[in-house]
């Protein structure tokens, strides 16, 4: 009984139950939902959001928000594409420079937030526009392709039945999980979000923690840009448009508190999968794409409301 209580007290478990219930429902009602092919295609669709949501989890744990991730995805994809296609740079170097672009955008966010003291919502809103604009400037609005096979295989290849991007997603999630859960820096991220003043007083350099978190978030957005460009085989300035909303939704459904100080990668991954399952299931059920949006919005609100009500009771 005690252990059962403990299991139910774990936040992620409730979210997991929601996922299971959702899958059971769709398994019965939607033909083909539970096929292996379909399940992997769900995970593949979740990958890009999921990778970014790992970074977003850290940002939201510090009590912040980052609206610029979708744009950073687009910008770094374009940077990688131009380097390979127009300059003929080798894929590895191109990817590295693309990732650095994302980190630079994240660093700018972090510095604006900590040193210039612009609230995260505003500074990253500015970056949303700047990064997207730069992506259009650099690409002049044209799609960029083709790319070397060694690059596109990172997005289109398979290892057995598993798409390669899914493996990257798993890798990112595991590293992020260990980083947040088990390292000293991870603890300090939670502490900074839980109480900034108290954290400063115990000697945590909270500015550094915040800057680092935004840099990581920029890096992961750029990494999602790499995966998406490789998967599509084309770099486009409008890639990842309005993804920030799905990323934030996945994180929040996963139990990360917008107040800061709480949240886990495990919850976020489950949250991202719930989003993917829902999208996929609604398509299989033949729900029109307009109603899909309504349904997804409703689920976000229900999930957070559920968590709020539960949180209020906890002793």
């Amino acid at each position, binding site marked *: 009984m005690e252990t059962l209580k403990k299991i139910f007290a774990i936040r992620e478990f409730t979210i997991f139950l929601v996922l299971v219930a959702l899958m059971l429902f769709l398994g019965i009602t939607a033909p083909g939902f539970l096929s292996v092919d379909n399940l992997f295609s769900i995970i593949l669709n979740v990958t890009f959001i999921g990778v970014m949501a790992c970074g977003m989890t850290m940002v939201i744990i510090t009590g912040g928000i980052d609206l610029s991730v979708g744009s950073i995805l687009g910008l770094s994809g374009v940077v990688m594409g131009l380097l390979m296609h127009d300059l003929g740079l080798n894929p590895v170097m191109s990817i590295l420079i693309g990732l650095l672009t994302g980190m630079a955008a994240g660093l700018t966010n972090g510095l604006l937030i900590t040193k210039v003291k612009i609230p995260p919502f505003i500074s990253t809103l500015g970056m949303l526009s700047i990064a997207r604009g730069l992506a259009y400037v650099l690409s002049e609005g044209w799609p960029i392709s083709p790319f070397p096979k060694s690059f596109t295989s990172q997005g289109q290849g398979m290892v057995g039945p598993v798409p390669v991007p899914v493996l990257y997603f798993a890798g990112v999630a595991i590293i992020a999980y260990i980083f947040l859960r*088990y*390292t*000293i*820096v991870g*603890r*300090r991220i*939670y*502490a900074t979000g*839980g*109480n900034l*003043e*108290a*954290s*400063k*007083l*115990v*000697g*945590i*350099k909270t500015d550094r923690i915040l800057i680092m978190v935004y840099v990581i978030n920029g890096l992961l957005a750029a990494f999602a840009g790499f995966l998406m460009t490789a998967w599509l085989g084309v770099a486009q300035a409008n890639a990842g448009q309005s993804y920030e909303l799905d990323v934030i939704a996945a994180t929040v459904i996963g139990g990360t508190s917008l*107040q800061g*100080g*709480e949240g886990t990668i495990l919850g976020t991954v489950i949250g991202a999968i719930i989003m993917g399952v829902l999208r996929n299931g609604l398509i299989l059920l033949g729900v029109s794409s307009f109603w899909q949006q309504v349904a997804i919005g409703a689920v976000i609100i229900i999930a957070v409301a559920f968590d709020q009500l539960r949180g209020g*009771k*906890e*002793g």
Partner: protein
Amino acid sequence: MNPVLKVVDISKEFPGVKALDQVSIDFYPGEVHAIVGENGAGKSTLMKIIAGVYKQNAGKIIFKGEERYWKHPSEAIEEGIVTIFQELSVMDNLSVSENLFLGSEPKRGPFINNGKLYKSAKEFLKEFDLNINPNDKLKKFTIGVQQMIEIARATYKESKVIIMDEPTSSLTQNEVAKLFEVIRNLKQKDVSIIFVSHRLEEIFEIADKVSVLRDGKLVETNNISDLNRDKIVEMMVGRKIENFYIKKEHEIGKPIMKIENLSGEGFENVSFEVNEGEVLGFSGLIGAGRSEIMETIIGLRKKKSGKIYVDNKEVTINNPLDAIKLGIGMVPEDRKRKGLILIHSVKDNISLPSLDKLKRFRLFVNEKAEKDLSNWAIDSFNIKTPSPTRRVKYLSGGNQQKVVVAKWIALRPKILILDEPTRGIDVGAKAEIYELISDLAQQGMAIIMISSELPEVLQISDRIAVMAYGHLTGVLNAKEASQEKVMKLATQKEKAYA
């Protein structure tokens, strides 16, 4: 006379804890009724039920002869039950006058009459001897001032019952005297006052009746004339406390930190020294600049000028991390805002400053060592918590304070600064904190303790530094110090500016 308010057989359970168990008390108009008990005895819970913040699981509230249920705290307030909570409920982003008249602002047509607001606030503040500008934002002021504003606000309304939960915990002697004057006036107006306090001296000064709670149960309600201090303490803890203040003999060693002509925001030209194994008390009125000095020493505020020496070497402290590296730790005054991460567990709070010492494979937290550390702290500081993973926000004030002290001691600092370490905690927990301070001094730690409670400073300190208006007006040897001498220095405006 009939009681204005009766609580009958009130019980309240929280998950895993029975906070109140069939408590019945009658409150009469024109009476000051003190509620005492140790941390976690259920005092605050009872007050919150009366005020409509919590709902009881069983029992009745009878107000003016009728059984009442408050759907919301605002209903209780409308009926004239006003509470001054231990946690401040003033809006620190608003001005003093806006706080005072919140919801009852003088109006001119649909607009707030700002001129009148300012004038009435000014007059009202005068009654409380608060010489501050009503247009200043409240966050500019110390907790003590904020608390006075909150009390003033409650007395301004037409109240039948005023609940004061630890109203004096951040006030100085003078302010307390002022408050008691206000309370006596309220008694004349037949207001019933429920007074929750840990300070027994105050209860004997102001209360007419005393109800003692222990472990959620009412022990007894008595007239104050039938009680004495020892009796109350005995009822509270359920056993006799022999030596209430124990000061262990400790040897004072060599100087460890020297402050020379330090100036910063709120204080000027302060010099003092503290030695190993010494408890240096810092006394003074609220706003004298004591907390500001300490926050400057540990690098939380910028200094304007002056030098800091540790171990005879001049040091530069730009941030709290520099201070920690030099062996200086600080337990802040406002434990909820600056001391704790309320939503995190007891264990995580305790280990936070020590994480660098709990390393494994360079980057990782050694969770075994962390668990040992928090278990050690819970045992040796007698922190009452159902488990190390319980969030600190669910602990009582005294136990929260022990967590803050414990997390610093775990770092083994050479110099520990304590800012109002016993604010809002009960006698039992206070005695434990005093003993702890004594022990630490005995082990050679230098302790700087800011306290606005004179008996406490006099009892615990070896030397007492007194501040007034941002200046250090004198340092007394504890043996020659008395309340009168300290108060004289604390109010000495002339010499301070000379």
